[in-house]
């Protein structure tokens, strides 16, 4: 994974160097490199699992910060049972949101509290409304964001902690922000995380880095809620295949012993 990021970064560097060498084809705006570092994640590696505390805190950050602009439409409230929440807790959490349902027997649409079977309620009814409310920039849907970005969770973390002042000589237009991890370095999303921007229910100090880690873990789960099951099945499958293949090899040798 780390190697892959390095390759990507190197490719980008080579490409931009060539663009520069080629002359005036390079974009006029600051075509900065996207830089982010590989992190240690509880869910990487063969035996990786999601840190339950990080998932719960990440959900809290999503609910308090991201959910006002970003949807999570492929995740259902019932999926939160993986976090260790009880059925009643999930029902209560879902019920905080209203969803449109219907038509009822009178042909009317009506609003009702969300149920565990509902997907996360999106902040905007459609993409046009989302753009209209965000100065023309579309806040991407987050349920697949980790799978949909080169670098995955490392990139998400890098983006969340990557807000800095622009370097000398780089001007950023109004309504845009400088971010070291974002391709092109100009991002329309204002810095979303602030120290103690959320108050964690488990009293973990809510530094920006902590919130970014928790949120990246939560979003990695949202992209692949079956990751733990997949890795467990993988370990069992490969162990089984190693034994089977060993036996097949022994049988092969025995059967072929008389061939000369």
């Amino acid at each position: 994974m780390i190697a892959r990021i390095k390759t990507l970064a190197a490719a980008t560097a080579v490409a931009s160097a060539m663009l520069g060498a080629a002359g005036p084809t390079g974009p006029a705006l600051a075509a900065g490199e996207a830089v982010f570092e590989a992190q240690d994640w509880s869910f990487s590696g063969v035996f990786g699992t999601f840190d339950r505390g990080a998932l719960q805190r990440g959900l809290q950050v999503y609910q308090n910060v991201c959910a006002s602009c970003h949807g999570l439409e492929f995740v259902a409230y019932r999926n939160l049972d993986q976090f260790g929440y009880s059925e009643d807790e999930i029902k209560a959490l879902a019920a905080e949101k209203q969803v449109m349902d219907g038509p009822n027997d009178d042909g009317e649409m009506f609003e009702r509290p969300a149920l565990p079977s509902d997907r996360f309620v999106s902040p905007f009814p459609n993409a046009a409304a989302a753009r209209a409310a965000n100065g023309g920039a579309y806040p991407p849907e987050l349920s697949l964001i980790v799978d949909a970005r080169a670098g995955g969770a490392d990139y998400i973390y890098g983006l969340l902690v990557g807000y800095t002042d622009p370097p000398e000589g780089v001007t950023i237009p109004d309504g845009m922000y400088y971010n070291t991890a974002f391709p092109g370095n100009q991002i329309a999303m204002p810095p979303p995380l602030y120290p103690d921007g959320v108050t964690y229910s488990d009293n973990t100090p809510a530094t920006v880095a902590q919130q970014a880690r928790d949120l990246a873990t939560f979003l990695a789960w949202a992209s692949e809620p079956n990751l733990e099951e997949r890795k467990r099945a993988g370990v069992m499958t490969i162990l089984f295949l190693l034994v089977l293949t060993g036996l097949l090899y022994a049988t092969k040798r025995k059967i072929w012993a008389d061939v000369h």
Partner: protein
Amino acid sequence: MATKFENPIVRWIDHRLPIFSFMHHELHEYPTPKNLNYWWNFGSLAGIALVIMLVTGITLAMHYTPHVDHAFNSVERIMRDVNYGWLIRYIHMNGASFFFIVVYIHIFRGLYFGSYKAPRELLWMLGVVIMLLMMATAFMGYVLPWGQMSFWGATVITNLFSAIPVIGESVVTWLWGGFSVDNATLNRFFALHYLLPFVIVGVVVLHLVALHRFGSNNPLGVDVKSPKDQIPFHPYYTIKDAFGLGVFLIVFSAFVFFAPNFLGHPDNYIPADPLVTPAHIVPEWYFLPFYAILRAIPDKLGGVLLMFGSIAVLFILPWLDRSPVRSGQFRPIFKIFFWILVIDVVALTYLGAKPAEGWYVFFSRIATAYYFAHFLVILPLLSVFETPRQLPKSISEPVIGGGGGFAGATAARRENDR
């Protein structure tokens, strides 16, 4: 014949419909050269990969919705809500890549050991047809999840046909079923993606009929001279293929369970958007050499012709390489050029993934020129000027007689001693 089977029901059926005799003849007693090495495992592996793709594909089709508004969502439903849907989809997704890995190794084995030479020319050509069908199937399958790369890949590749003079634009409109890649395109791609694998099965049957006519080629490339050169397919090659399958499944599982998206592109997890073009439109890795050839040519029609030409040249390969010696083991100069070709194709794969600018284009052109030179110039010349090493008299001779100093013979001996 009928006495071959002890079970009376089998005997009764076989007397009227000799399928058991057929299977016994073709899968059990089928005489096979005894010196096949592990490169010969990849034929049966390709067959198994095809079955894996068919089984997982049909299962996926039960849950998939071929509509621009629902395709992406239905794939995510499979990933999240269908029982073991993630497993079936990841097997299918990575299975495509592994099918190509296996088939490419199978093809290069044929190239090295001269398996395309008389009397196996049609066997080889049917194999090239299978590869073409696989490419069409894989391309259309990649469109189905309707992600960004699905959409833009489909747009780029179908647009190639607009290079055809005069009727090009009309052909593209006809392929799309409209004036852009849209719902009609997705629907027909789904229909064809479901159909073509069964066409592949049909051509595979022909491939096997042609194979069993003269039997397998072998690492020495000499014809079978006597029954002691051969062993029955079962149990010798059934167990050897089973062992090879085990190794294959371990590597395959490592990808499916631990790096399922490594061979894919992150952009395909973004729903297709006709208004947003990805920074770099890259096909799946197994198309990269052909993509590199396409982009190496500054002229669109020329690029398309060369890209299809790179496969068409394989059709006439049996008549380009006129050397009577099959196996590269006995062709000292051919052997060197074979490995240069391998490096050339790997280089084309790398270049196909890079943006078409600067030195990448320059090297793509060199590599493309070399690819065609290998088949159209080097092989015909080698047929005339190369002096092959002395061939063993038979498959058994070098093995029994201590080899007589042939490198290939000792290799075969080591193989058999294992």
